[in-house]
């Protein structure tokens, strides 16, 4: 057996497109209830496409357990959100005579629950993921994660972002050190300072923007060029930080005597985002244009047929058109909205999500895999609540 186990990716745009289109349509037709099935099926496809050492990952979550978990979360969150929002709105208007404070407070109030939900969602996903027939797992610890995440966020904000690497490192360490593959515990090594170099493009961008703003104040016209450049650089800096920190963190992870290696490239990820979203916007835009042409042609045809019938074209016809029943225009508008929403979702899955997964998979390998033979099965984590909280709050339960 060789000393590195590479990962192949066998997902393809065609089948993935049809799968996400089909499940997306069903989700819309069922007012969103099919989304549990959609998520399950998309994950099954994506997991099976990632094959470290040639063996596919397997996703074993079921739609019904997701539905159940969602219902459980709704029972608890309905009370929390309904009552808390009401009280906050009351307090905000009585004390501050405005609703800004209510939205701010209600967001802050929900933050710990969001972190909690993210950890629980991760636990569920790992518990339902298998490779070589062996389950992954995450120890319980969602509340510990929630308060740590809240404090790390505060520290990062208070230090104007300087402590971002510390936050990213320690939160990842908290999760990684509780992650298992079978009986083997994952370990996050390294120090948080090792993530500082990953910040370099973010820092350049911040200085560029600050410099431009300053130059602009003194009437320097180079600011018109350097400010947009700085903002674009900030986008690249954010991607660079994510990719680099992921690479560094992965390379410092060990699973017993097994080591992990990741070599994703920020430039490649940037290109995937750029090209992917260019395609998505072009296609959705072309769809819009085609629809406009069809409507325009339809109206013209009506007017044309009327003139052929020797009727004079007058204002009444315009009125007849604008008198289309309200429910009809409403339904058409809603359908149009959903179609655009659906296409946007499906296309960004196919042209951004899939290539990204492919890149991350293909640049990942397992070093010294001979030690995998030491790994044996762990018991099933029932976890009936699944990712219900994350689903209800719309966080971290994306595929």
């Amino acid at each position: 057996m060789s000393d590195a186990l590479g990962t192949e990716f066998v997902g393809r745009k065609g089948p993935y497109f049809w799968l996400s289109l089909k499940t997306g349509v069903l989700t819309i037709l069922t007012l969103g209830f099919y989304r549990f099935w959609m998520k399950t099926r998309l994950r099954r496809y994506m997991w099976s496409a990632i094959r470290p050492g040639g063996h596919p990952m397997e996703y074993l979550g079921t739609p019904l357990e997701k539905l159940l978990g969602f219902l459980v979360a709704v029972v608890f969150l309905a009370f929390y959100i309904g009552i808390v929002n009401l009280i906050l709105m009351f307090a905000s208007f009585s004390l501050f005579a405005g609703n800004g404070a209510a939205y701010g407070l209600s967001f802050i109030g929900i933050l710990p629950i969001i972190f909690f939900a993210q950890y629980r969602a991760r636990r569920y996903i790992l518990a339902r993921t298998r490779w070589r027939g062996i389950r992954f797992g995450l120890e319980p610890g969602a509340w510990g994660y929630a308060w740590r995440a809240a404090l790390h966020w505060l520290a990062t904000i208070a230090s104007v972002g300087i402590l971002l690497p510390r936050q990213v490192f320690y939160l990842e360490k908290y999760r990684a050190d509780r992650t298992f593959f079978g009986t083997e515990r994952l370990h996050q090594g390294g120090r948080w300072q090792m993530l500082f170099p990953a910040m370099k493009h973010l820092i350049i961008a911040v200085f560029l923007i600050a410099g431009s703003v300053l130059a602009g104040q003194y009437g320097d016209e180079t600011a018109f060029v350097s400010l947009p450049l700085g903002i674009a650089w900030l986008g690249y800096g954010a991607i660079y930080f994510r990719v680099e920190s992921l690479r560094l963190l992965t390379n410092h992870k060990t699973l017993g005597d097994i080591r992990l290696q990741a070599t994703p490239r920020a430039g490649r990820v940037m290109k995937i985002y750029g090209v992917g979203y260019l395609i998505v916007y072009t296609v959705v835009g072309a769809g819009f244009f085609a629809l406009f042409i069809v409507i325009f042609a339809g109206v013209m045809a009506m007017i044309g047929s009327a003139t052929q019938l020797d009727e004079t074209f007058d204002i009444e016809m315009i009125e007849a058109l604008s008198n289309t029943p309200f429910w009809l225009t409403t339904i058409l508008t809603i359908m149009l909205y959903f179609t655009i929403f659906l296409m946007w979702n499906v296309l960004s899955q196919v042209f951004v999500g899939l290539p990204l997964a492919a890149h991350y998979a293909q640049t990942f390998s397992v070093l010294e895999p001979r030690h995998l033979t030491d790994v044996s099965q762990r018991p099933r984590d029932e976890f009936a609540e699944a990712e219900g909280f994350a689903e209800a709050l719309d966080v971290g339960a994306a595929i």
Partner: protein
Amino acid sequence: MTETLVFGDLLDGARAFPRRVALSLGTNHLRLTPAEGDAVAWPLSALRSPPDQAHPTDLVLALADDPVTRLVIRDRDLAARIRAAAPTLHKRPPLQNTRKLIAWSVAAVASVALIIFVLVPVMANQLATFLPPSGEKALGDTTFEQIRTALDDGGFDPVPICENPEGLAALAKMEARLTASVDLPYPLTVHVLDHEMINAFALPGGYVVLFDGLLDIAEDPDEIAAVFAHEVGHVVARDPSRMALRSAGSIGVLGLLFGDFAGGAVVLFLAERLIQASYSQEAEMNADIFASDTLEKAGVSPLGLARMFERFEALSGDQPSLLDHFMAHPDLVSRIERAEASGSDADYTPSLTADEWQALKTICD
């Protein structure tokens, strides 16, 4: 055995170690022969394959009653033959937890209903009375601007407020006459919006808003006075504040239920429905009783109220609830009937003079 031997990877679900097994397909069984140890036979009828697999030809096999064991077959030919021979490859596992699922579904629906229809309204009713006038005013200001912007069809400009000075003077006179006998929690803010909608509404903090469309269809000033008095009734009862607090609580809960399947569109839609939703029957009835009392005290004929309702009914079937509770309330009906029976307008004076009425009708010109 006539089959040619090919290999697959057996993952026994106990160790992270794939074992190479020789495979042969018989009529009823798939035979797995490891390098060491005994061969096993998997009955074809027990073979299952996980759905939605990415690889176009590879076959992953599982056994019906074994959740962990997997067999990965890369040989295209054998995979195809197994796909053809195994009858129930894609059969789904039986449903589990059905009872639990039903129980939690009922619990979820019940708790959401409890929140939206009981808890939030009760709390909103209680809290609305504690809201300080400045808070209510702020709530009203915010909502008024939102509504003005939302009502504009195309652009982003809010619907204009009508400000013809003579019209405003007439409106102020009507306001003064109607509110003389009323103990208001705060001064009213009365506006006419330049919009063809036939409607009027009240907002928290003493806002009374009439639409130009309503002024257009009204045939005499007493009809407008009746609507005005009705809206003042809502202001005095603080109905708009209750409503605003209610929707603040309910919208979050409804958003929770529908998730992000349409990027929040449903949440927005529901939010708008809630804003436009009517007050409770009881609140409407109280506003009507208040209106008829106020008109009486101000010496304005309460018949305007009846005529306005008839007009609403004639225009569209869209205001049945208004009419229903109005008709269903014998006290109110008898009062109107008394006014009608007396026949003489002796006790009453029109709420505005003919000139003032003209000015009010052209307030938006």
